[in-house]
């Protein structure tokens, strides 16, 4: 949601400022818990409250699963724009896990996808892409 900074809308301005402050803190908290986050992804999150809230949810869900299975992991967030497809911007959640064979990674990936996407908003479902790789 975009809120104008017009001085004729003082209430909207206050809401915008409060949301921005909380959003900044939220993005910082998310970043600290990740193994890495790209500058572009941080910028995207700072400008989008809905995606930030949904990413936080996805990360919590992901961590619960990985901790339950006691799997060593590394989580990174980056953003990707397709130069040939204007308006398409993905937020990549790259999960690297320690596993010998990729079939077990795929099973874990499928289960994680099923759980994560059922909680996300339609916009976040489209934007957040979960990718599993080997650690």
């Amino acid at each position: 949601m975009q809120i104008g900074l017009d001085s004729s809308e003082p209430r909207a301005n206050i809401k915008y400022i409060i949301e921005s402050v909380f959003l900044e803190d939220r993005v910082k908290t998310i970043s600290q818990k990740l193994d890495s986050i790209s500058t572009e992804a941080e910028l995207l999150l700072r400008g989008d409250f809905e995606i930030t809230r949904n990413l936080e949810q996805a990360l919590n869900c992901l961590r619960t699963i990985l901790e339950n299975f006691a799997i060593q992991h590394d989580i990174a967030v980056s953003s990707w724009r397709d130069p040939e497809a204007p308006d398409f911007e993905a937020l990549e959640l790259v999960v690297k896990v320690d596993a010998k064979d990729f079939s077990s990674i795929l099973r874990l990936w499928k289960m994680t996808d099923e759980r994560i996407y059922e909680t996300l908003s339609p916009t976040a479902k489209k934007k957040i892409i979960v990718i599993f790789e080997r650690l």
Partner: protein
Amino acid sequence: MDPLDFYGLAKELRTKSSNYPEALKRTIVGRFYYAIFLMVRDELGVALRGSQAEPLYSSISQMGAIHTLVVDALSKIERDRHLSNVLYGMRRRRDTADYRTQTLRKLNWDSEIDDIVSMADEVLQNRPGLQPSFSQKLFEIETFVTFWHSKVAASP
């Protein structure tokens, strides 16, 4: 040509040796990706056959944006959300194989091939359900192909 011929070719190439082993392995990764990407692209094309979006889809199919469109189309189908991510993951690996001649850490290309084969097989196992799934969401997909076409056609 059946796109899955690329899958067969990639399997054959795995048994061959070359004076350029890394280039060969990178080529194999690319062929596995293209086999699956083209297969899904064509299944979507069949689902759109006879619809208003068919000519628009045919025109985007020849453009670079089609890779992302296909991933995006799969993500519209709840049941196939995971397949959309798998195809996206395959594309990332293909991009590395084709474009990144210098990678930060040395990649194990044998393991890259093993991984992409597993991903390819995961999508292939679900092939029979793809077209019916696209057909069920036809209206949504038609709308989104029209939107994509307007954006892609407008871009320089």
